[in-house]
């Protein structure tokens, strides 16, 4: 079973307007690499040159911020839900 990844509006041009796509991988890093294979160009929008998630993007696994876990090495179960969400909101 593939992991469901929620794609934010600014990236949906790359996913042919799909708000949720499937991806496979045991970690966020693997999930992002698989996304890149299916939707070329998406990874550089999410990660900077060093491979770290960009300052203004938050990634959540089942609602938990990966920065409270192991960052992009955070493990992802096959039934997990991954959300990529712009960081600029609230307050």
């Amino acid at each position, binding site marked *: 079973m593939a992991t469901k990844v*929620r794609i*934010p*509006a*600014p990236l949906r041009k790359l996913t042919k307007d799909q*708000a949720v796509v499937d991806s496979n991988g045991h970690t966020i890093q693997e999930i992002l690499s698989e996304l890149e294979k299916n939707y070329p160009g998406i990874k550089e*929008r999410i990660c900077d040159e060093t491979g770290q998630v*960009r*300052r*203004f*993007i*938050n990634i*959540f696994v089942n*609602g938990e*911020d990966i*920065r*409270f876990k192991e960052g992009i090495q955070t493990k992802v179960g096959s039934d997990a839900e991954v*959300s990529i*969400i*712009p*960081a*600029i*909101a*609230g*307050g």
Partner: protein
Amino acid sequence: MKKIKALKCKECGQESPPIAKHVCEFCFGPLEVVYDYEWISSVISKEKIASRPHNLWRYWELLPVEGQQVLSLNEGFTPFWKSRNLGKFLGLKNLYIKNDAVNPTFSFKDRVVSVALTRSRELGFDVVACASTGNLAGAVAAYGAVGCFKTFVFIPADLEMGKVVGAGVYDPIIVGIKGNYDEVNRLCAEVADIFHWAFVNVNIRPYYAEGSKTLGFEVAEQLGWRAPDHVVVPVASGSLLTKIYKGMSEFHQLGLIPELHTKISAAQAQGCAPVVTAIKEHSEIIKPVIPKTIAKSIAIGNPADGYYAVKTVEKTHGVGEWATDEEIIEGIRLLAKTEGVFTETAGGTTIAVLKKLKESGKIASDETVVAFITGNGFKTQESVQDHISKPYIIEPRLNEFRELYESLVKSKQVEEHNFLKNPAYQIK
């Protein structure tokens, strides 16, 4: 004539049309309103501003709306005065208090909401919503009701009762989330992505945040059209701090104040201090935290404008300091007893940090300092109720009062109850 030219990404500079959108399509950076300053400078003047009603719309030219029909409950132009006792107590000769706790719904959030809902109406929305730590919920609920919007407010389910009631009275739909504010915020970002509503602090955020500039405008105007030397601002998302500075910068740029040298200092609760930690560590990275503090109104562990707040503090040579929950409660009591203002925990944080900065020499005794009090203590009574004076309960009989009075005199509580006269407190 349109004064809003575009929305521009603060990071990559990419411009887009001024619609309901808060994030850059390209780099996810925050969008900011671009004004036609040439036009603004040709029409604005001190005299014009001073001739207008005492609310924040006196600065209409510098706010991100196009029409004159604004949704106002007379927010802003709140009291500002030279400290009566607190300055003396702390050893500050020129301390000023900006009391934004007396806005229509008793916090500075009325500023941002008045602007956000006016703009939302211009953009054609009939549903408004927000993610709130409490104060914003009340403001959106009130302005939403008066503006005849359908209103949804999302709050953490464990909010202080005063804030839940303070929103509920306006009859919005209140959604209590089993989680902290950061989780409410994440959910709202997802909801806003699907439901085409005006989320004031999500897709309307570039306009909303501009409302906070008016605190900078007002302080400069109320000081007699000049900038203070130093200000202390409570920090949650970091937006208020950056916009107070932006307001003063715009006044300077337009020649409404002669010069700008203001140091902007940030106050947070120790149990939720991602911005102050980054300032202290000289780090560009804001490490999110899981909040653990009584100061719920500023308990944002993952602050959207944290990065820009740090940059503003550094640029202006301000400092960052935190206060423990005990110090926050003491700050609330101190402001009440010295200036007569009952503030909530965010204000207690500001006062506690102000005291620490004076004690550590980061604020000099002759600086013109402004403490921003952004919310009202009647909404967060839980935080202080066990730390303040309680009634002595007696029967309605004169002799009972005599007995009580004599016991109070004996225990010296009558002479010492006013702490400013209490010799234990050294007034500097």
